């Protein structure tokens, strides 16, 4: 039986947008619902992919879990302990790490790789001697695939290629031996030819050390390839969540179906017209009544614009938020 490691319940992240001085004092501020009631869990050693378009709130969700963005509501249980609003996060921070998207910006250009990777050790006071510190850094670099580690210790980020930089960034999060990692589009900036090497290395960490990942990506095919389960996000809500196989091979939500329809596949020559959704994802600041996807949904019904659909379990572990599947709606 898999052990629940992280449980997110009804997580909300709202931002207030203030326009001008008069509104600051008198008006009601507009609320941007970046994450609007998201619930899911991640088991130990599990990979959950969070897929969605830009502005759907995937990164904000990841940051809110790590308490890097202020949660406006909901609860985040890590190993059964409430994290949201907790004052002393030092223990949690040792167990949960983040990998950022852009290795060209996330590494300090003036620091040596050894200092970038070793910084968490210094911050947390985990090592006492220089030898011990170097040993941990070497270990982290090697598990991130930068071998031999000695070649990289005293290099600076500009001396490394994009793929090597991202490996160094990952080494920085692995050095804490985390149990849980939020990986925010870790390979989207990299060439396809080096992407898989990094993904494989991350999977290896899972297999060897039981690291669980929240893998944030916009690439459905990558999500399918590596994850145990996939959650599809749209405008701050999870529209559909289920095992990777279920979501890709048996998608239920019209949005998931639309995303899969227009996925370009190498070698596939178009025989029919692309089924493209009209328009663009609305701004999260606009208030949407009913289902958030309603305005662009090709099969929207009357009820969709009025009532928000429930989260319906269509098969074990496969939840869909769509009126099409709630009883009575035909």
């Amino acid at each position, binding site marked *: 039986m898999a052990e629940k490691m992280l449980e997110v319940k009804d997580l909300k992240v709202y931002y207030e947008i203030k326009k001008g001085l008069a509104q600051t004092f008198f008006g009601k501020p507009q609320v941007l619902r970046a994450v609007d009631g998201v619930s899911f869990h991640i088991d130990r050693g599990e990979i959950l992919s969070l897929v969605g378009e830009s502005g759907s709130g995937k990164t904000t969700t990841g940051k809110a879990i790590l308490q890097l963005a202020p949660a406006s509501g909901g609860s985040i249980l890590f190993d059964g302990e409430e994290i949201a609003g907790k004052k002393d996060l030092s223990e949690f921070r040792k167990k949960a790490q983040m990998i950022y998207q852009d290795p060209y910006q996330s590494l300090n250009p003036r620091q040596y790789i050894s200092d970038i990777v070793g910084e968490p050790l210094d911050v947390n006071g985990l090592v006492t001697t220089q030898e011990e510190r170097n040993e941990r850094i070497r270990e982290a670099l090697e598990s991130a695939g930068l071998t031999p580690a000695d070649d990289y210790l005293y290099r600076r980020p500009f001396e490394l290629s994009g793929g090597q930089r991202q490996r160094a960034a990952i080494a920085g999060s692995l050095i804490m031996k985390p149990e849980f990692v939020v990986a925010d589009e870790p390979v989207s900036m990299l060439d396809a030819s080096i992407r*898989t090497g990094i993904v494989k290395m991350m999977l290896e960490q899972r297999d060897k050390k039981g690291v669980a990942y929240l893998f944030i990506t916009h690439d459905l095919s990558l999500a399918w390839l590596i994850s145990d389960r996939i959650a599809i996000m749209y405008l701050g809500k999870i529209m559909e969540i289920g095992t990777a196989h279920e979501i890709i091979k048996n998608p239920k939500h019209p949005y998931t179906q639309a995303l899969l329809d227009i996925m370009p596949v190498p070698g596939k020559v178009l025989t029919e017209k692309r089924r493209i959704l009209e328009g663009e994802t609305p701004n999260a600041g606009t208030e949407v009544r009913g289902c958030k996807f309603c305005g662009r949904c090709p099969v929207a019904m009357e009820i969709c614009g009025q009532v928000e659909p429930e989260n319906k379990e269509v098969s074990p572990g496969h939840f869909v938020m769509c009126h099409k599947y709630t009883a009575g709606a035909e």
Partner: protein
Amino acid sequence: MSLLEVKDLKTYFTTSKGKTKAVDGVSFSLDYGQCLGLVGESGCGKTTTALSICQLLPKEGKVEDGQILLEGVDYASMTETEIMKHRWADVSIIFQGAMNAFNPVKKVGWQIAEACMHHQNLTKEQAWERAGDLFEMVGIARERVSQYPHEFSGGMKQRAMIAMALACSPKLIIGDEPTTALDVMIQAQILELLEKLRKELNMGMILITHDLSILSETCDKIAVMYAGKIAELGTVDDIFNHPVHPYTKRLLACFPNINSEERVIPDGIPGYPPNLIDPPEGCRFCPRCAESMELCGSEEPEFLQVGPEHFVSCHLCKEGGEQNG
């Protein structure tokens, strides 16, 4: 006569460490209404090829050798003043970062109208009118010409970029990663738009991308570039279904196939592309190639024709061709 003919193009950059051979002997041709996909890893010379065609290279870069014939006129030997007459009017480019390509303090419509006034001698009113027409052509409401870039979403900015590229009805349009920064849904919208416009206006198009998967939907021909050279050139069918060059095969294998039942993580390509200041002798892919032979490290392969429109630069196709009969 074909629309564009690039013959043995060599573009080098002068750096403090020596000459970077960013594009080193690239040849291809393109017909009216055709679309050529230029694909490869970062740093393989895709964008440099495009910039060479428009003569928009930064000052360190120079076309050292070769010809760029657009309707028989050689762009490579032109002076800046001569080329200015052709840029926009005959060839235009859609840049990669649509988000940053517009001037943020000028109205989007004006930035388009400006080009029309320069190249087509339109009056200010006519140019604004033209900008409005172009906006409608790419699916943006006419009224939005007087808005500023920050009022546009990413997809709309990219559409406006396309409108700008079309301003003077060019014969050749180059899209440098036109959809890379966009979401899949917007990407599909933009690709559809480009395809429609290309057919309507019978333009030639070069689509530069690192994402092989979008090429099969949009292109007629594909050129796979590696380290400043074309490794393989052929029709979409040639490249995807009958690839010959080991690099093409490996690159194709890097993209997961979502339609298959089995989940197999692709192998990727070990190693990194070579340093182009001092490229390896012989075939440039040789150090990363799993099928390399002794010959590959010493002798550069020729660009051989293996099918009606299929060209490959690899020693294997010479040898292998005999073996496979």
